[in-house]
């Protein structure tokens, strides 16, 4: 039995489809405030199907907030945000539809400690997609093989290493067969020797054509995988360029400073 774990075609049955060629994520004039603090200032961004975007910038620059707005974990106050042609706004139906299509991986893994690895993976397919258990488990097993830890299926998250937990978290997001994957600093909480095993999985995913938006400081990953690198500072997109251009010839002074800081060690 083979189970399709690839992203489903763009014209899925749930939610309005995007016309071919349209960007899968469209962000126009996005603004967000925490109280009086202006986190996102007039952000414009569009991401095409299959594109890989790496977002970097100093801490507090709004990069995590930006991708958390994409699946409505954060509410934006001004501007337009379309995912798969569905507008992200304060509407539970829309939000549910978007979250089904967008997978997310967190810095702190956020696996459910009371469920086994297998149950972590099956939770959303069973309750959200109403997949029969056996089918969900088969998909989950295939994905665990893909992230190279099928033998851990019956363990609890607390029994795994950080790198293993993060790979489970990636598999958990993929179980919903999302069309877009968001990564919020997926390797920041990991010990150095575990970073590679997670990045390898992400690179493989990128090679299979997944649309990815990755907040990370792993510039090696950006160089290898990204179609575009975006630099954010103080809530603004300061610069965006293909990695070759971005690293060799940054246009803005702030980008140069930032690159100098993170590449120097």
């Amino acid at each position: 039995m083979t189970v399709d774990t690839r992203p489903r075609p763009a014209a899925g049955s749930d939610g309005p489809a995007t016309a071919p060629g349209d960007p899968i994520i469209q962000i126009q004039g996005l603004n967000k405030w925490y109280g009086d603090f202006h986190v996102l200032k007039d952000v414009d961004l569009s991401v095409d199907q299959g594109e890989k975007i790496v977002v970097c910038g100093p801490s507090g620059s709004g990069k995590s907030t930006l991708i958390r707005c994409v699946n409505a974990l954060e509410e934006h106050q001004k501007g337009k945000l379309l995912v798969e042609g569905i507008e992200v706004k304060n509407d539970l139906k829309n939000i549910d539809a978007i979250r089904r299509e967008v997978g997310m991986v967190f810095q702190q893994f956020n696996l459910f400690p009371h469920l086994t690895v297998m149950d972590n993976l099956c939770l959303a397919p069973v309750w959200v997609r109403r997949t029969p258990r056996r089918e969900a488990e088969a998909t989950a097993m295939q994905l665990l093989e893909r992230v190279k830890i099928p033998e851990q299926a019956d363990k609890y998250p607390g029994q795994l290493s950080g790198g293993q937990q993060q790979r489970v978290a990636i598999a958990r997001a993929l179980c919903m067969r999302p069309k877009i994957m968001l990564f919020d600093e997926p390797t920041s909480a990991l010990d150095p020797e575990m970073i590679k095993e997670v990045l390898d999985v992400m690179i493989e995913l990128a090679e299979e054509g997944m649309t990815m938006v990755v907040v990370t400081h792993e510039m090696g990953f950006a160089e290898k995988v990204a179609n575009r690198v975006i630099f954010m500072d103080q809530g603004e997109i300061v610069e965006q360029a293909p990695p070759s251009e971005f690293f060799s010839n940054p246009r803005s002074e702030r980008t140069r400073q930032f690159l100098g800081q993170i590449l120097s060690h």
Partner: protein
Amino acid sequence: MTDRIETGQVTGPPRAPTGAIRWLRENLFNTWYNSLLTLVIVWAGFNIVPAMVDWLVLEAVWHAAPPEACREAAGACWAFLHEKGRFILFGLYPYDEQWRPTLAVALALGLIAVSGDRRSWGRWLAIAWALGIVAIALLIRGGALGLSYVPNNQWGGLPLTLGLSIVGLVFAFPAGILLALGRRSDMPAVKAVCVAYIELIRGVPLITVLFMASLLIPLFLPQELSIDKLLRAQIGLIMFAAAYLAEVVRGGLQAIPRGQYEAADALGLTYWQKMRLIILPQALTIAIPPLVNTFIGFIKDTSLVVIIGLFDLLGATKSALSEAGWRPMYKEGYLFIALIYFVICYSLSKYSQALESRLETGRRARR
């Protein structure tokens, strides 16, 4: 499509109405069911609060009056406190000598207040406490320095409640530390004795421990050795508190990483040096918040001595209320002492919370 610093036109967030209206909308009317709850609570408040103010203040009898006068008033009978307040506070203590327990209570509260400041912790505080306790005992008991002797069956009210609490803790705390160390000992016999004691006491209600102390101690001791009721109650309270404090201290001990024990062993310290210099100072610091919570529980628990016939704050109130005519004034009497208990326990618990957050930040800063 690059540098957008110039174009970033910064305006304020889209603002809801500001000030009071905004606060109301966000905190009281943010969803339909919250709005409903708010309305219900406000309506209930309009019904209850004026009646309470009437009873407590406006229609209350404030001046000294016989109980019959209170019957006619619709409000609270504060005349009861005029008449019985001193009895509630001091029990059967000779009326003319009541300045002595007053001074003793002030001294005790002063010492507690000073101990609240962490900068005061040290040798001088210990000496101050030792002197303070001697002074308090002298004041209350008398029989020296020209103070008349007051036997302990006349002690009562607030000084008795505080005395039972403070003396109880002073003795129970070291006992609790020893029990906790014993429970974590490698020696099976020592451990078994401590576990048995702790679990036995914690497994039964305080009232049975007090019954045991008041009824069984006379049976357990030879005839010629008789202990009075107050001391028996105090022994029961100490036995009870020691078991609970032991468990709190054990919690603190468990939080100390094994590396600390190993480092102390590697320095060649003996067991008692290791405990006294390295482990206990850290363990007790960690355990301060739960210790204070145990203290609070203990102060409340001393009220149970009324069941074995002592006149502590609650016992004196009960006895004042048993007098003909004043019986219906239980609300005023109980409200009065509830307030005293509340002020003591609430301020201690706020103190423990403040200390906890400070310790928390201290630990984080050290990381």
